[in-house]
């Protein structure tokens, strides 16, 4: 008799704790070309999930992250998206390459599963496919250049050079830069590409120098190749200012490009003076013992945005989550002070166009914010 009582008590308590977890899928790259960006973002996502669970989870249930490695191979990426859907995830967070995110969309559209990327900035992700289950909260290439230009308006540039690399994201950002620059009536006097694996950027910089621009806009996202560009810049002794995409906000430049980046202007989604950022950094240091970087913040915001949508939906029904996600208004770690993520008027890009900040490298450190937004 006592045995039966004991057994039923065990079942009773277990049923309280062994409720199903809320599964969120994360597709990242652990070994391929996207690893330098995907790794910190994934760490941020993991930290966010742990934080959620420390505070009681979501809708009374624990959050479980199912993390898959797509090796930056888009066809494996799509297969993994199917795997996650089969395993019952209610949301997929994509922190790998942009083409991989794109290929996952065919799956999420078909399977009617919400998907978001907190980090990818390629403009084509929301324009190529009309997928009502996909949102992009990374800062778009077009937003980056618009912010950079707003800051540079006082300088009255008429002739500029554009340089990038041959990665897919570098090309996408360059395309966005080019479109916006041309629309603003600014002439692009030289447009160069540094290929992955190049040993020098000297010929490209020489060509740019010969065209005599007033400034150079950098759209490349490959760290090693960008360093080559800076080296050639110094070696040739040119002086025109460099304005860069958000790639320069990655802190590794402070070590690997020491002495080369003083004075470079770049656009960033991270304002270290923002109260949410300070809180995030403190909590992250306390929780993991490591210092977070801005990439970590993207992953963190991704999970928090999804959690916010699930909370407002009040259930794990994918359609309800979809509707709730579309109604998002959330202040995260990334973005300028006071920025809120949101998808007004049915749009699927959530990063406020006025939410980027412009910063300048002072010496080897990322300096203060000198401009906010596009106004």
């Amino acid at each position, binding site marked *: 008799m006592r045995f039966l009582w004991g057994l039923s008590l065990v079942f009773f308590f277990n049923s309280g704790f062994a409720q199903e977890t809320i599964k969120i899928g994360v597709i990242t790259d652990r070994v391929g070309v996207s690893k*330098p960006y995907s790794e910190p973002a994934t760490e941020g996502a993991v930290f966010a999930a742990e934080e959620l669970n420390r505070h009681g989870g979501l809708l009374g249930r624990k959050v479980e992250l199912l993390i898959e490695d797509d090796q930056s191979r888009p066809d494996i990426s799509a297969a993994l998206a199917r795997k996650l859907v089969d395993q019952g995830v209610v949301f997929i967070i994509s922190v790998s390459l942009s083409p991989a995110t794109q290929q996952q969309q065919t799956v999420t559209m078909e399977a009617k599963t919400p998907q978001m990327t907190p980090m990818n900035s390629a403009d084509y992700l929301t324009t190529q496919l009309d997928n009502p289950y996909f949102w992009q909260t990374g800062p778009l290439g077009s937003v980056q250049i618009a912010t950079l230009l707003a800051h540079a308006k006082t300088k009255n540039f008429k002739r500029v050079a554009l340089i990038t690399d041959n990665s897919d994201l570098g090309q996408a950002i360059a395309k966005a830069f080019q479109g916006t620059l041309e629309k603003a009536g600014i002439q692009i006097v030289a447009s*160069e590409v540094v290929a992955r*694996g190049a040993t020098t950027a*000297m010929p*490209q910089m020489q060509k740019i*120098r010969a065209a005599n621009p007033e400034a150079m806009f950098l759209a490349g996202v490959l760290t090693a190749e960008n360093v080559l560009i800076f080296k050639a810049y110094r070696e040739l002794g040119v002086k025109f200012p460099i304005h860069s995409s958000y790639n320069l906000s990655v802190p590794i430049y402070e070590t*690997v490009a020491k002495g080369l980046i003083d004075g470079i202007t770049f656009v960033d989604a991270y304002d270290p003076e923002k109260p949410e950022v300070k809180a995030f950094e403190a909590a992250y240091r306390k929780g993991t013992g490591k210092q977070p970087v801005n990439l970590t913040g993207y992953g963190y915001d991704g999970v928090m945005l999804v959690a916010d949508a699930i909370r407002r939906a009040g259930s794990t029904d994918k359609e309800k989550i979809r509707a709730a996600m579309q109604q998002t208004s959330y202040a995260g770690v990334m973005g300028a002070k006071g920025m809120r993520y949101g998808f007004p008027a049915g749009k699927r890009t959530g990063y406020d166009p006025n939410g980027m900040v412009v910063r300048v490298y002072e010496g080897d450190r990322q300096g203060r914010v000198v401009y906010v937004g596009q106004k």
Partner: protein
Amino acid sequence: MQDLLELAVGATASGCVYGLVALAYLLVLRPTGIINFAVGEWAMVGAFGGHLLLSRYEWPYAAGMAAVVAFLCALGWLTERIAVRPLVERGAPVLAAVLALLGVLVITREAISVSFPPDPLPVPYAFGIQYQKYFIIGVTLAVFAAAWVFFERTVAGRSFEAVALNRRAAALMGIDLRRVSALSFAGGAGVAGLAGLLVSPNVSAHYLMGVPLAIQGFTALVVGGVGRVEGALLGGLLLAFAEQLTIRYAPIPGGYAQGVPLLFLIMFLVFKPTGLLRSRI
């Protein structure tokens, strides 16, 4: 005009790096007939070794360089011992060894990738950024001179040539095939590591740098011709000049400029596949 001079020096330095990688291929290819695509990853190990010893532990440059080259030689010897010798001794086709080395390529790259943070890492210059090009050219010339002397003037070098010509005859003449193999791998690895160490202050040490270097070195090898040591350097220089002059002076948009060296190579192969320098024999 000043542009052209500057570019010429830069292209020469790049060409020297390609030439060293081509030499690394050559040193293994001639006696054994094996194409070792892992040279790119060996170069990468050289670069990371440079980062560790010179940047993190701040050894003096000469000591660090010597240590890196020595380590790479040991690594090359080890690779031969583990991945190649068992195959050769069982009479496996050459292609099996090539593939085993491709496997070694993957293993090396992943081993580095999991041991270091994913971002590119800095490697210091020998004498400062402005002089690096001359340093590269100087070291390369020294290495090639040494290689030339080795092959042309020393008995050990002649034995390499003998093995390249006819393995069985060489063995019958008393040349230790295994020693030649082991030495060639050790030498090839050392040269490749040196190439990586020389190029990495500019390109940084990162885990994806191996494959592009391997391809560029292979191209240089084929262009120059596999018969002679000087061919490797010539091939490297031609390739670098073709790449950089095209980017600088060809009136085509930046994106297409990467395709031109490839087209050039294909044309070259179609019309003169044996390489520019014919073999001595």
